[in-house]
């Protein structure tokens, strides 16, 4: 005797409904408790399930109005065994797939709240380039406002104004309150890159201080011999380049960059070294610093600085660096927050060396101290990594023997 499938009672005030959808086809093998149909009443939508396993015979069509208690199908219990074993599986799949259709993967509209879209259109700031502070990183109106407001800040506050100030000095003599001149293509490029770095990265700066006395002692001890042998002076920069290479090896995440939605790990060590010229700040790249000795690094820096000042430097000299070092200390900067050189993810700022009282082993002693700053892209570098990196640089400079021993 087949089991009747009836519309279940839905509560006192409901007597009819619409059988909106069948989850099974006529003749399907059904399992006990398997959803059979969707019933819509004016109060709720509910599901009817099979009370027993068997083969189902449908008696009404989807969309039909049905009464409470009406027989809408019957299930022949014995037939379940007769049905081929494979039959329930596809029926089952259909039943569970139908109520949850896969939605299209991407919404057809631009993301962002109405105010975000308005500001994007009015200012040209692309919300995709803005770090969001809303839920799950969503860009809020406030994020857009601050992104649109942000002025172009020079990479190293100290050197840039100096470079800019020189040509403007004579203009003041003309008696006019302002003079205007076209930005050079190089200055435009610098401006563009700095702004883009501010807009696209989540910039954060960590600081430390370095006791320069060991390096200074080394320099004074070997300077004469070094100059005699190599024909150039041993500067501080080569120590920092070496220390950075060591630290990059130790904390490889600093040597990564973002390319669209891909994380790129660099396995080479081309370091940009910022050089001030009368045309502005330039950052030629010293190639393969891991293979160069101190003299080699000093030579490469001197070469590119000379070519930069002579205007012989080419675009290729600026490209492909994985990390940048800038020395605001040349101009006396005590502390600054450099801006990264995209697509690089971090930049080290060196600063002026000043004698300062420091506590060493419980004693106040005077040491030549330098503040160092590491600005990094927080999107892909964690604070722990950035701090470890800077501490590593500090350790290397404070104990240059480590550079030799590869510690």
């Amino acid at each position, binding site marked *: 005797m087949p089991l009747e499938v009836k519309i279940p009672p839905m509560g006192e005030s409901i007597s009819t409904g619409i059988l909106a959808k069948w989850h099974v086809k006529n003749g399907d093998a059904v399992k006990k408790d398997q959803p059979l149909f969707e019933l819509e009443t004016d109060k709720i939508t509910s599901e009817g399930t099979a009370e027993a396993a068997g083969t189902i015979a449908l008696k009404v069509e989807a969309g039909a109005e049905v009464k409470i208690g009406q027989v809408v199908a019957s299930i022949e219990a014995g037939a379940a065994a007769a049905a081929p074993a494979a039959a329930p599986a596809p029926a089952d799949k259909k039943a569970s797939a139908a109520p949850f259709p896969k939605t299209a993967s991407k919404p057809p509209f631009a993301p962002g*709240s*109405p*105010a975000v879209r*308005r500001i994007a259109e009015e200012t040209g700031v692309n919300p995709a380039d803005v770090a969001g502070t809303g839920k799950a990183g969503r860009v*809020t*109106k*406030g994020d857009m*406002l601050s992104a649109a407001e942000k002025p172009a800040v020079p990479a190293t506050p100290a050197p840039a104004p100096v470079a800019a100030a020189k040509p403007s000095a004579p203009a003041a003599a003309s008696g006019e309150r302002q003079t205007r001149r076209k930005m050079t293509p190089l200055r435009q490029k610098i401006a563009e890159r700095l702004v883009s770095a501010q807009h696209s990265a989540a910039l954060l700066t960590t600081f430390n201080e370095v006791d320069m006395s060991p390096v200074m002692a080394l320099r004074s001890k070997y300077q004469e011999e070094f100059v005699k042998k190599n024909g150039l002076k041993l500067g501080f920069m080569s120590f920092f380049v070496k220390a950075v290479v060591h630290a990059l090896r130790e904390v490889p995440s600093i040597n990564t960059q973002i390319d669209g939605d891909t994380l790129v790990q660099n396995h080479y060590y081309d370091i940009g070294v910022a050089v001030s010229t009368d045309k502005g700040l330039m950052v030629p790249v010293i190639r393969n610093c891991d293979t160069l000795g101190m003299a080699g690094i000093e030579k490469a820096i001197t070469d590119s600085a000379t070519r930069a000042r002579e205007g012989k430097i080419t675009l290729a000299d600026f490209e492909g660096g994985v990390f940048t070092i800038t020395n605001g200390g040349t101009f006396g900067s005590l502390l600054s927050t450099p801006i990264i050189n995209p697509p690089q993810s971090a930049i080290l700022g060196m600063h002026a060396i000043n004698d300062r009282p420091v506590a060493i082993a419980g004693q106040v002693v005077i040491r030549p101290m330098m503040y160092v700053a590491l600005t990094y892209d927080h999107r892909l570098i964690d604070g722990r990594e950035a701090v470890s990196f800077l501490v590593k640089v500090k350790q290397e400079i404070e104990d240059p023997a480590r550079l030799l021993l590869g510690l």
Partner: protein
Amino acid sequence: MDSYDVVVIGAGPGGYVCAFRAAQLGLKVALVDKRATLGGTCLNVGCIPSKALLYSSEQLVFARDHAVAHGIQVGPVSADIATLMKRKEAVVTRLVGGVATLAKARKVAVLKGEASFTSPTVLAVKGADGVVPVTAKNFVVATGSAPVELPFMKFDGKTVVSSDEAIAFEKVPSSLVVVGGGAIGLELGSVWARLGSSVTVVEFLPKILATYDDDIVRSFSRLLQKQGLKIEVGAKVTGLKSAGGQTVLTAERDGAALEFPGEKVLVAVGRRPYTEGLGLAKAGVALDEKGRVKVDSRLRTGAPGIWAIGDVVAGPMLAHKAEEDGIAVAEWIAGKAGHVDWDLVPAIVYTDPEVASVGLGEDAAKAKGVTVNVGRFNFAANGRAIANDSTDGFVKIVADAKTDRILGAQILGRGAGELISEVVTHMEYGGSAEDLGRTIHAHPTMSEAVKEAGLAVSKSAIHAI
């Protein structure tokens, strides 16, 4: 001994929701409650029955006071309290039955009885068939709260009553004194005032609904007084006395003695966490100085595997807050990413008009030194409100002056409780007042006032001068 993945103690909206979510996530769950029905205070004697009474009494007020103005002729109008209470009970019965059905469908074991920890890992459930011990990998304490009793005028269930009794008076008291001008006191005070009682609300603080903005409270107080409620603020209740066969509540204000005679006195000065008899000490669960279960930011008590949610922990004692706590704890137990934003819990007073709030009010923002822009829009300028006789009240949106991010909202008006939700949603996603103003709201609806208030933050409301 029965063993579960999760045993939830207390089947209120926090507890049962926690149990259901845990079951949905594939855990073996038991729900313990000493009440005969599920749903806790909220469904049985709290939110739901009071809403039923509020609705019924609103119909009475319409029929009695307003129908004629709509050209609807009615005969003499009166309330049959027995029928009104029967309907309230039907509402409750239907909902608690629904929760029981869901528990069964989700295969959540329901253990009826009083729960008490005998150790950090064993809970004894004392039911009709004796004491049954159960163990679980996780226990969730969701025992809720109970009305605060005043030490000098204890509840007697007849004259001095709590909300438990005030939702079930058999007849309308000729006069009712309500101690406490918070949500519960004002809602139940409204119910009985509408039904004909002479109601006086006595509040200790300088204003009712102390946490709301002054302008909201001023308007609201005036509207309640127009409905016949007497409101006495700044009055410190001192005790109860009997004079001429009548109960009199005594109080003082600025040293002057006050007397409020009343057939009944409803004490609604707040609720306290309910932890008696739970054996929390035996489980190694600590309480804070206010008697609340101490939890960390993930609602864990100090005892391993014991969590606590809802009214029994710090935070607003609201059903929807307890529900979110419960869902988050179930998800954390299941190793998923639970989430509750405790700064975004809306609060509603279901009077007529309703009062609703979320986040930072204008006054609170100023007190905290936050620079804000405030957008205000009156329902008197809203088409639907005029058509619906619902022009009392206004919407206020408080936004950060610099980023325009919505920091809070307060709404006084019919349906304020429904209207607040969209502001909460905008806030949840970090939305700005402009976002609210640029979102299409159907016309004509009361919700347009919310949109206009959003626009008013930047002084660009369309239907305001």
